[in-house]
C-alpha cells in the first residue's frame, strides 16, 4: 500500500519535473533550426494538451507539413480568433523566435493574469512559427544561404532561379505594384496570384474562418515598423483611422519596454508600395486589424540580429502585439478593465469631487 503510494508519488514528481524541464530547457533566446522548432511545438501540444493543439494546414513546395499551434481555453461554440504568422521570409530569423516567445508567454501568463485568461476564454490564438519552412531550412544550410528570402519553388520554364516572394504572392492586388516579374529577383511575385502552396495554405485555412478572425499579425524584420494596409499608394483601408490609432498606441507600448521607436503607417508611406502581401489579403478578407510587424533593428545588424537581442526584441514586440490583441478583444467583448478614457475621467472627477467637497 505504502509502496504503491510512493511509486505513484515518484511518477507524479517525474511527470511534473519533465513538464517543467521541457519548459525550462527550451532556450527562447537562441535561434533554433526547423527540427527543434517542430519538436518544441510537439512538446507544447503535449504539455498543454488541455489548451494547445497542433493543426496541419498545408504543404510546402518541398512537401513539408505546415503547422500552427491553436491555443485557447476550450469553450463550446465557435470562438473568435487571433492569427499570427512568422517566417514568411526565410532570413528574418527574429520572427520565428518571436512567435515561439509569444506562445510561451501566453501559456505562462494566462494562469496568473486574469485579462489573459479572459482573452483565452473568448478567443483562440492561431500561431504559425515558421510559414516558409523550405526557405527557413535553406537559410540554415550554410554561410552562403543565410540571406535567402523567398520560398524554394523552382522558377518557371526559361528562368533558372529559385523562389517566389511569398509576401508578394497573395491574392490582393497581385502583381500591381512593388513587385518584380523576374524570377531571379527577391520580390518576384510568382507565376500567378496565390500560385505558391504556402500562400494557398493560409488562404484556404483562413478563408473558411475569416469571420472569426479579429486580428491578423504577420511578423517580419528588420526596420522597427508597424505597417497597416494597404500596400497600394492609392488605396486606403476603410478603417485607416482606427488602424493608425491602434498602431500608434502599440508603438507607444513597445517604446515603454526598452525605449525603441517603431514608426507606424502604410507601407507606401513609410517604406515602399507593394502588392500581394499577406496583410493586404487578410484585410481584404474583412479581418479588421491587420498589421505587419518589422522587428529590430534599423540596419546595423539587419537580418543578422545578435542572439543577445532576441530577448529585448521579443519583449517589446510582445507588448505591441498584446496591445493590438487586447484592443481587438475588448472591441468585441467589452473591456473589463479600465480604459484610458475612463482613467482620465477618474482623475477629472476626483479633482472635481474633492474641490466640491472642500467648498
Amino acid at each position: 500500500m505504502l509502496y504503491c503510494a510512493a511509486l505513484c508519488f515518484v511518477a507524479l514528481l517525474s511527470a511534473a519535473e519533465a513538464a517543467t524541464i521541457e519548459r525550462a530547457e527550451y532556450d527562447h533566446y537562441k535561434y533554433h533550426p526547423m527540427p527543434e522548432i517542430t519538436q518544441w511545438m510537439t512538446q507544447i501540444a503535449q504539455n498543454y494538451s488541455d489548451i494547445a493543439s497542433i493543426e496541419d494546414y498545408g504543404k510546402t513546395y518541398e512537401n513539408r507539413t505546415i503547422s500552427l499551434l491553436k491555443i485557447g481555453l476550450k469553450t463550446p461554440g465557435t470562438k473568435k480568433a487571433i492569427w499570427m504568422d512568422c517566417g514568411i521570409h526565410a532570413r528574418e530569423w527574429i520572427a520565428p523566435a518571436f512567435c515561439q516567445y509569444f506562445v510561451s508567454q501566453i501559456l505562462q501568463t494566462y494562469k496568473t493574469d486574469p485579462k489573459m485568461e479572459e482573452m483565452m476564454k473568448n478567443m483562440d490564438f492561431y500561431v504559425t512559427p515558421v510559414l516558409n519552412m523550405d526557405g527557413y531550412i535553406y537559410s540554415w544550410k550554410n554561410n552562403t544561404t543565410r540571406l535567402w528570402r523567398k520560398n524554394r519553388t523552382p522558377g518557371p520554364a526559361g528562368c533558372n532561379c529559385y523562389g517566389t516572394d511569398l509576401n508578394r504572392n497573395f491574392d490582393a492586388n497581385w502583381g500591381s505594384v512593388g513587385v518584380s516579374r523576374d524570377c531571379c529577383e527577391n520580390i518576384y511575385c510568382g507565376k500567378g496570384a496565390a500560385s505558391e502552396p504556402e500562400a494557398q495554405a493560409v488562404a484556404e485555412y483562413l478563408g473558411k474562418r475569416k469571420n472569426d478572425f479579429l486580428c491578423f499579425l504577420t511578423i517580419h524584420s528588420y526596420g522597427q515598423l508597424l505597417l497597416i494596409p494597404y500596400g497600394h499608394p492609392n488605396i486606403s483601408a476603410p478603417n485607416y483611422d482606427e488602424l493608425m490609432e491602434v498602431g500608434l498606441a502599440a508603438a507607444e507600448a513597445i517604446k515603454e519596454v526598452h525605449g525603441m521607436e517603431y514608426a507606424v503607417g502604410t507601407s507606401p508611406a513609410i517604406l515602399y508600395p507593394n502588392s500581394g502581401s499577406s496583410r493586404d489579403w487578410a484585410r481584404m478578407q474583412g479581418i479588421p486589424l491587420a498589421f505587419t510587424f518589422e522587428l529590430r533593428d534599423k540596419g546595423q545588424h539587419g537580418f543578422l540580429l545578435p542572439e543577445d537581442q532576441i530577448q529585448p526584441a521579443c519583449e517589446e514586440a510582445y507588448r505591441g502585439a498584446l496591445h493590438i490583441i487586447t484592443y481587438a478583444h475588448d472591441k468585441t467583448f467589452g473591456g473589463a478593465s479600465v480604459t484610458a478614457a475612463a482613467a482620465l475621467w477618474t482623475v477629472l472627477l476626483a479633482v472635481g469631487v474633492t474641490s466640491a467637497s472642500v467648498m
Partner: protein
Amino acid sequence: MSLSSLVFLAVLLGVNGSLSVTIRPEAASTDMSAHPNSLPETADEADTSGQVRVLELEETEEDVMATGELNPNHYPAQRAANVVRHYLNTRYGSPYRVFTLNRVHSGNAEDMADSGRKYQLEISVQDFISNKTEKCSAEVLFPRGEPQDSPSVQASCEELLKIDTKAQEEAWYQQNKNQSLVTAHLPDSYGHIDPGNEPLWHLGIVASSFIMLNESTENTLYNMAQVANVTQLETENDQLKFDYYILLHDMVSQEIIHWKLLFTWSPAEGVKVLQKELMPKCHHCETVEVIANTN
C-alpha cells in the same frame, strides 16, 4: 469623504460604458462611415480578381515625388537621411567610430530644374560605439540623368569629430601594421562578432559607405548586411591595406548586392578606396541542387 467616493464611483461606472475608447462593433460587412475615399467593404469586395478601383487620396499625394515639406517618418526623407549617414561615415568613420541614423526631425524637397532634386534635412545621427548622438543639418542633391550620377551631400555636424577615438585607432593601427588578418562572416549567421573582430566589422561599414553613397538614389535604401570575407594585405605607405568581400542590402528591392573592395586605412588618412568591383549574383549556385528531404 465616503459620500463623495460613492458619488465618484457611481459616476465612474456610469461613464465607463459610453466613454470607452473602443468602437462599438459594426456589422462586419459594411463600414460606409469610414474614410470617404475608401473602398466600400462588402463581402463581394473581398475581391479575388485583383481589380480594385484606384482612388486618389489626399494624404498620399505628398509622397508622389515629394516636394515641399516632408513628413520626417515617411520614406522620401528617410532615404535621403540615410544617404547623409553614408556620407558621414565616409568622412568621419573609423574602426572606432560608426554612425547610424537616429531620427529625421524635418525635411524639405525641392525640384532643381535640370540638375535634380535637393533635400534639406535636420537629422540626428548616433555613433553606435560611444552612443553619442548629434544633430546635423544636411543637404542632399540627387542628380538627374541616365545613368544617374551619385548624390552629392553637404552636412554640418562638427560635434561628431569631438568623439575622441585617436588613442584606440592608433593602438589598433600599431597592433596590426605587420599582421595578415584573415576572417569571414561579420556578423555570423547568429549575429555574432568576436570582440576582437569588431574593428574590422566597423571598418567594413565605413568602407562600404563609399559604395552605398555612390550607388544611392531616391529609390534605394542601403545597409551593409555582412562582411563575407576579410583579407589583410601587406601594409603600403604606412597604410593598412584590406581586401573585403561585402554584402549590401537594399531595402527597396530587397536584393543582396555583392561587392569586392580594395582599400587602405590609417588613423591619419582614414579610408581610401583603391578599387571596387560589383560581383554578379550567384545564380549558378542554385541550379544544380539535390534537395534531400531530411525534415
